[in-house]
């Protein structure tokens, strides 16, 4: 769902095409419809379809999956291309800032693709002093969507980040 369009703010006065003599009542149905359509198209281009999956929905999904309330954090980085020509082998990289000591480490990082037919992608488990929370792999995406990364720390906190990925073909069929 695209974000609601603020009609008043987004309509550009017709300017040169219609001229200033219409300025008093330029807000006709035609201008309204065409301007809305243009703005709608623009909105879709700028905020990709599905961007309406707002943070509340995302947090609700994460709560259902993990039983925890995630905290959006930039300590957890999810690197993926913003657009990718096929959905079969989309590169994915994750990295978490962590000392990886016994008392302060990342237990796991879990990847979820909420718009895939099966939303679980992978979970990576780390061991303090032994491995770093830094992994790259390649994944399948059925359609353009937000990919979620969740990192559980040794103190039980759950970090979350998400990134929009646009794929041109369905990688799950």
């Amino acid at each position, binding site marked *: 769902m695209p974000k609601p369009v603020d009609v008043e703010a987004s309509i550009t006065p017709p300017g040169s095409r219609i001229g200033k003599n219409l300025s008093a009542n330029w807000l006709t149905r035609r201008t309204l419809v065409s301007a809305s359509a243009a703005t709608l198209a623009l909105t879709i281009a700028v905020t990709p379809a599905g961007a309406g999956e707002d943070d509340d929905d995302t947090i609700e999904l994460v709560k259902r999956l993990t039983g925890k309330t995630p905290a959006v954090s930039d300590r957890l980085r999810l690197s993926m291309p913003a657009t990718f020509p096929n959905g079969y082998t989309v590169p994915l990289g994750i990295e978490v800032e962590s000392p990886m000591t016994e008392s302060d480490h990342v237990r796991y990082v879990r990847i979820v693709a909420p718009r895939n037919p099966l939303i679980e992608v992978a979970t990576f488990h780390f061991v303090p002093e032994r491995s770093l929370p830094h992994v790259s792999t390649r994944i399948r995406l059925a359609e353009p969507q937000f990919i979620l990364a969740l990192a559980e720390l040794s103190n039980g906190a759950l970090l979350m980040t998400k990134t929009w990925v646009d794929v041109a073909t369905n990688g*799950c069929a």
Partner: protein
Amino acid sequence: MVPVTPRVQVPSSVTRGEVFQVKALVGHKMETGLRRDNEGHVIPRDIINKFVCRFNGIAVFSADLHEAVSANPYLEFYLRATESGRLEFVWYEDGGGVYSLAHQLVVD
């Protein structure tokens, strides 16, 4: 049937405590169980569902893989070692198949 072919890239020696990169790839179709054959029958799921890397018998990194991991699953990860030892890489397939590779890591 294409043979399942695991491959790993690890440095042969590292210095004590140094972080080193591991690249692990296994040739596998990762059949999702979502596709149908020409007659409309569902092609059963057949994926590598787990990967474990052990050092001297203790798991140091592992991954649960689901249908959304690409065919020929590739993992790049980072380890640290403080003593020489045996690195073992194991891939677990649906239906019980297990594929593994081992590598002797020298820590200076």
